[in-house]
């Protein structure tokens, strides 16, 4: 059974079909790339999966369970985490609190404060931020804020992680480190779907990639055009 399936998912903004009758599926343990021009509906699709938006029609199933129309926090607790295109860390909070928040609220099970802090420290190490434990989130660089956002998402113990343009705005070294991080996340058994414009990144780590064109022509079947683009 695929970890994520969508059938005929459609979303309109006013008269504009942002996502039109899209089918997709993702298998457990893969890194799936979503590429395509701006405005093709990639982020909208993420918003639909994570329930920031409700689809006009169609169904989305996670591990075989229909999750269409659930609230975002419910979907997060079921095991779908995400990051944002414009990085959204909580700058008024400490780096550690940014992660602990996800441990407290984003899981299906209860966790004690001490455990949450210990796990947050481990996660910081995992994403390569252990030096910044005591810092305020606002003092981090963009690349590090993105890592922190990923750590915060991982704290919810997801099975599926949606990464929206994690590499955008990073320099070559930072991109390489981010790619390596995504691979390690997958190696920990988490399925990753990533929207990316940095082609080098997506070509080298994604198991398969899907090309999204503009709304009407959104390709059916999360098209498995591995490392192929058409314009």
């Amino acid at each position: 059974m695929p970890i994520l399936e969508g059938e005929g998912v459609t979303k309109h903004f006013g008269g504009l079909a942002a996502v039109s009758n899209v089918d997709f599926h993702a298998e457990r343990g893969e890194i799936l790339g979503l590429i395509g021009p701006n405005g093709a509906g990639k982020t909208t699709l993420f918003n639909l999966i994570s329930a920031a938006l409700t689809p006009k029609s169609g169904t989305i199933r996670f591990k075989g369970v229909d999750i269409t129309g659930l609230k975002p926090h419910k979907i997060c607790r079921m095991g779908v985490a995400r990051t944002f295109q414009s990085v959204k860390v909580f700058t008024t909070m400490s780096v550690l609190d940014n992660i602990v928040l996800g441990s407290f609220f984003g899981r299906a099970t209860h966790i004690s404060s001490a455990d949450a802090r210990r796990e947050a420290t481990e996660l910081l190490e995992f994403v390569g931020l252990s030096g910044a434990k005591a810092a305020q989130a606002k003092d981090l660089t963009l690349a590090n804020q993105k890592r922190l956002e990923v750590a915060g998402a991982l704290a919810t113990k997801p099975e599926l992680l949606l990464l929206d343009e994690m590499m955008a705005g990073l320099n070559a070294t930072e991109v390489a480190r981010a790619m390596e991080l995504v691979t390690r996340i997958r190696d920990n058994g988490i399925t990753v779907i990533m929207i990316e414009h940095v082609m080098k990144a997506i070509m080298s780590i994604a198991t398969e990639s899907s090309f999204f064109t503009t709304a009407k022509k959104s390709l059916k079947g999360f098209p498995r055009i591995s490392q192929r683009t058409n314009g």
Partner: protein
Amino acid sequence: MFSGPTGYISLAPAAFFGVGVYTAAVLGLVLPLPAVIALAGAVSFCLALLVGALTLRLRGIYFVMFTFGLVELLLHFVLWWEMSITGTTGRVVPSVDNTTVYYLMLAIFAALMLTAYFIRHSKMGLALQSIGEHEEAAAHRGVNVTALKTITFAVSATFMGAAGAVMATRWTYIDPKIAFNPLISFMPVLMAIFGGMGKLYGPIVGAAIFTYLDEFLITRFPYHYMLIFGIIMVVAILYMPDGLVGLAQKLWKQISGAKYADT
């Protein structure tokens, strides 16, 4: 407690205050005072839950306007009720001596501060803070934003309701216009901005100095006091975005120098 971390400015305190006042007026003769206060709090809590569940989807200025509207709505509802059903607009509240009022208010204040302190230092406080910054991101981290906002809103309303019930005993005579006075909503907001919203003690410092300033100006400049007061507020908002507490912290940082410099 509610507005500080979440950044939602509520002008509804007067509504819950008024609910408290009216609870005291209606039940003051039949029930002992502690029961009346508890009941006033409970009624405000329930009302806030209902209102919150319906309206906390609104954000920013829309939420502010709605809460302001709520005060007017309740005012006119009570006015209509009193005129068409009871036939009078005023009510008498059994009075209590000033010392009791003082200690009751102090007790409510202490309970409020304790609750606020515990909320701020709990998981709930963390979640509220996250809502204040990125509401949608908080939701995607598993925070049930609507429920949390509603409950916090209701808890803070409880204290306003209780305070209303106590104040009613001091006024002894009330009518809807006194009970649902929008000024009661504006004052706390102004006090909080004046003192600084970021810290728990900001609004307290603000309220204390604000009240002192108010009394001082009204006795010294009985004719121009509102004018002077207005100018002080404008200057405070323009030049002290973090309030008095923020200003004090900034000064303290400058005095203590590099030791506390941001790293």
